[in-house]
């Protein structure tokens, strides 16, 4: 098929330049969409989540969890549990049907034991899974399991884990010591830091600590597994249903992909989190075995507490040394960090300083250590350690030199050690309009928070209410365009000519589905209400879920290609006869026109030169069963309309900036401003105002972007002020695995939030977009430290910044 869009689709896989084919006019793109596709369902309670699934005869499965931070099962007796009325099946770690290992990868292939016999942290799912008539019976049965344990020594602190003589946290996985990556440090280097420090007027050194925090997603990890004969039917709470399906297909000696039916109901959020942890898929594996044994569907669930084991990848201790000239030009940064339990230790702590500054000399050394706590995985997102560092480096430098932090940021903006002149040349050669994104963001943000009036030296402004006033600024690039692949399709329905987008993905709440509909409506010339998308069904196409630091830059291209191919199909089909039958062919809808003579607007095809010649898409596609033997129209000799099936698919794949061989400088920036009041008597910190300015390149769905700015702020404020998963140092047991004792932000925990969107068009995605979903929640947390410093004149580099730390900093405790 000669379709120019197919060539363009293939041309754009490199993602190394500006979008050369944007639309000339936007009707829905960039507008505030009144109709959220999921809005009525979610507000009215009719949206169904995996936790809501109930099937006839369904059993409930729960895992045993370790009471010890490090222990091996020596002997296990499950006979009493098996005898409990209501228990239907018990699956032990030593069950002959369980393989030694299986692919339990939720995000990528990950081969692990399904039920391990050794626990490396308190709360780990080990030993046995029990399916019963109810969750309560399964729970009761677990208390009847009798285990003789071999208790082992444990270590919780990442720095202590590296001390000589420290207990091995995970001896079977890492027998040589607690340093991840076979004892290697992760090194990042640019230029020569010694030279950079020699050029500096001032050396600033500080230590920062980030305590463990976690995702706390509303819907507990869960899933349902049912066998229809030899065909599995699976309901997942999983960000990547296609990866889950791939793992399931590898089980039990192999299950053909086309026999597995997946459902991905609404997702009670993941933020990465559990979706990437093996036990999520282990739940499905055990449920599959027990569903087959009992002949009944099995739903597995974790408790709220069990959801708490695991966290974000920035837990650790950071030592930073910065060299700067008196005017704020940073000459060198050296960072040493010890981070805990990172599952993917590839993101470092100084990467952002390379990606979006001109700092020429950088040396970072990261030790990732095993400790006896849950796995730390990307949790909106893996860049937390980098943004933490960037904020503290810049704000410590500005404070030490007595400079305005905005001026320090502008002075050091750049990329890969090069200045803005170099970066502007890259913009030009890649076809972008040359704009100064950071400067545009800063100007808007300064005006919103009245920076010039409100900024003051640290510890100098006491408010009439007695509290100290603090103001702070930070910045970063927008990185939500990283990588991914996606395939999406679209078809026109018979009878009413509406459009349905196809492609299974996880609807995690960012309203991405509406954004794809906006693109489809604008590109096709349809009314937005005529485009619908249900990503929960499995049509074989797998759309990328907004994750892996990417959404629109991948899915936006996939749907746009599909829609443009479809549009061409429609116009070609409208100008030629269709389907030659015994009664002759169906005439062309526009017999005298060529495809280029036609256009589509408001779901109507019309002749551009004479808009009175028009057919709605419904009239054009015709009814279903138009030419069947029982068609009364046909019997009366009336030819009904009939078009070829109208269906097209598009796809996109990109490596993004994580590809070290093809670096792609990022041009869009974000700026954040925070205002606080600190009560010096109680140590309480009130976040009274946050201004977010995000250069998203091009806005597709305004409400969705603002939602990410609001939501990111609240998650960021929680992470900064109160969120810490606390373990008892003596027993290694988690102390606050619940939402009463682990404090996420409430509506009262932040003052007004400004949501300012800048559109420079300098993103690599379609129409110049770059994403926003991870950026705000990741950048905002570290900003609390500089804000508190500006209020009280003392640095508290230990996050979360709780009242006891404030009082200690003030010398009051």
């Amino acid at each position, binding site marked *: 098929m000669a379709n120019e869009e197919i060539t363009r689709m293939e041309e754009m896989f490199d993602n190394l330049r500006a979008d050369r084919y944007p639309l000339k006019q936007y009707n829905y793109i960039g507008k505030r969409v009144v109709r959220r596709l999921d809005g*009525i369902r979610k507000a009215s309670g009719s949206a169904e989540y995996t936790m809501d699934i109930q099937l006839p005869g369904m059993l409930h499965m729960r895992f045993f969890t370790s009471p010890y931070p490090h222990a091996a099962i020596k002997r296990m007796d499950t006979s009493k549990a098996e005898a409990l009325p209501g228990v239907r099946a018990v699956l032990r770690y030593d069950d002959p049907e369980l393989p030694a290992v299986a692919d339990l990868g939720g995000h990528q292939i990950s081969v692990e034991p399904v039920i391990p016999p050794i626990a490396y942290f308190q709360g780990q799912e080990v030993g046995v899974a029990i399916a019963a008539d109810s969750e309560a019976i399964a729970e009761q049965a677990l208390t009847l399991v009798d285990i003789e344990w071999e208790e082992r020594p444990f270590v919780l602190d990442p720095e202590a884990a590296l001390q000589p003589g420290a207990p091995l946290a995970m001896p079977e996985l890492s027998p040589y010591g607690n340093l991840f990556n076979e004892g290697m440090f992760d090194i990042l280097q640019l230029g020569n830091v010694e030279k950079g420090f020699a050029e500096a007027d001032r050396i600033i050194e500080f230590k920062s600590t980030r305590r463990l925090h976690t995702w706390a997603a509303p819907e507990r990890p869960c899933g349902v597994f049912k066998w229809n004969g030899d065909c599995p039917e699976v309901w997942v709470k999983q960000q990547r249903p296609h990866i889950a399906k791939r793992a399931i297909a590898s089980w039990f000696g192999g299950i053909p992909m086309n026999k597995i039916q997946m459902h991905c109901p609404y997702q009670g959020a993941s933020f990465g989190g559990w979706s990437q942890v093996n036990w999520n898929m282990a739940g499905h594996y055990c449920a599959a075995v027990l569903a087959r044994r009992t002949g009944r569907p099995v739903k597995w669930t974790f408790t709220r507490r069990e959801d708490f084991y695991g966290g974000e990848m920035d837990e650790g201790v950071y030592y930073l040394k910065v060299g700067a000239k008196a005017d704020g030009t940073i000459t060198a940064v050296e960072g040493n960090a010890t981070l805990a339990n990172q599952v993917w230790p590839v993101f470092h702590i100084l990467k952002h300083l390379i990606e979006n500054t001109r700092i020429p000399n950088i040396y970072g050394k990261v030790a990732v250590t095993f400790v006896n706590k849950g796995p730390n995985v990307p949790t909106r997102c893996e860049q937390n350690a980098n943004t933490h560092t960037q904020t503290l480096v810049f704000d410590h430098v500005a404070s030490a030199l007595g400079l305005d932090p905005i001026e320090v940021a502008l002075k050091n903006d750049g990329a890969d050690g090069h200045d803005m002149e170099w970066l502007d040349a890259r913009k030009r050669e890649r076809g972008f309009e040359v704009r100064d994104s950071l400067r545009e963001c800063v100007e808007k943000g300064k005006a919103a928070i009245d920076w010039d009036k409100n900024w003051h030296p640290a510890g100098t402004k006491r408010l009439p209410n007695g509290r100290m006033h603090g103001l702070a600024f930070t910045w970063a690039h927008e990185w939500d365009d990283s990588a991914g692949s996606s395939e999406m399709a679209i078809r026109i329905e018979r009878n009413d000519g509406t459009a349905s987008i196809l492609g299974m993905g996880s609807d995690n709440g960012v309203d991405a589905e509406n954004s794809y509909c906006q693109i489809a409506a604008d590109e096709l010339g349809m009314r937005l209400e005529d485009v619908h998308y249900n990503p929960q069904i499995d049509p074989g196409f797998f759309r990328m879920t907004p994750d892996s630091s990417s959404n629109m830059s991948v899915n936006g291209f996939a749907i746009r290609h599909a829609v443009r191919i479809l549009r061409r199909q429609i116009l070609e089909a409208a100008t030629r006869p269709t389907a030659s039958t015994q009664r002759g062919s169906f005439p062309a809808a526009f017999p005298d026109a060529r495809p280029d003579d036609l256009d589509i607007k408001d779901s109507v095809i019309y002749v551009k030169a004479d808009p009175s010649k028009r057919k709605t898409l419904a009239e054009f596609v015709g009814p279903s069963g138009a030419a069947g033997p029982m068609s009364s129209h046909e019997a009366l000799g009336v030819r009904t309309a009939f078009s070829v099936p109208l269906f097209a698919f598009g796809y996109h794949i990109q490596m993004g900036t994580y590809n070290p061989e093809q670096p792609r400088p990022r041009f869009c920036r974000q700026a954040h401003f925070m205002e606080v009041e600190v009560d010096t008597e109680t140590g309480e910190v009130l976040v009274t105002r946050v201004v977010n300015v995000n250069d998203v390149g091009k806005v597709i769905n305004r409400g969705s972007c603002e939602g990410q700015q609001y939501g990111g702020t609240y998650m960021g404020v929680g992470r900064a002020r109160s969120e810490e998963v606390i373990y008892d140092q003596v027993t290694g047991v988690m102390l606050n695995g619940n939402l009463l004792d682990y404090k996420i932000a409430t509506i009262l925990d932040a003052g007004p939030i400004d949501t300012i969107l800048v559109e420079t068009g300098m993103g690599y995605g379609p129409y110049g977009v770059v994403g926003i979903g991870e950026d705000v929640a990741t950048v905002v947390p570290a900003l609390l430290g500089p804000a508190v410093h500006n209020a009280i004149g003392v640095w508290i580099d230990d996050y979360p910044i709780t009242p006891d730390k404030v009082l200690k900093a003030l010398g009051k405790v």
Partner: protein
Amino acid sequence: MTKSPHTSVKHFCPFCSSVCETFEALKAHVLSEHQSESVPTPEGVIRLTVNGQLYQVKVEPEWTLYDLIHDKMGLTGTKTFCDRGACGSCTVIMDGRAILSCMTLAIECDGRSVETVEEIARNNPVLIEKYAEHHAMQCGYCTPGFVVTAQALLDRNPSPTEDEIKEALAGNLCRCGTYPQHPKAILEAARKP
């Protein structure tokens, strides 16, 4: 009056501890002395009104009201996020008050009247539309709890201020951080006739 077959069983009045020989006698006593029909039957059967419909159901002693309405009645709009009264996702309106269904035992709900998000959506579609319009949701798991809390507020205060709305919603947790969008939706819904 028929005598109970379990002659050894005494029936105690839950209001004044009077002893009755039969269950029927207890019911008559409660009705005449306490003007109430709120007596759980010995078999654990309760009668309660949910969304305007009377249910007579047998409940286990450990069931929460959430278990009953979500798992047994299939009214799945009511959710649990925290499981211990910290998050507000399981909020329902009971006899005019917003209460936490995960912290309420079903067996204590005999004679009560409960309104869930499903009924609120039927009765106040404007509130639901405003929620959708203002993106007062992301993953949506906690959203029904907010809607129920908002309706309970509007029932007792039809024209709340933004601060009153925030105070009312302070017990509802939203991990996606949609908080600023709720007062907008509720204020506009309140303004609609």
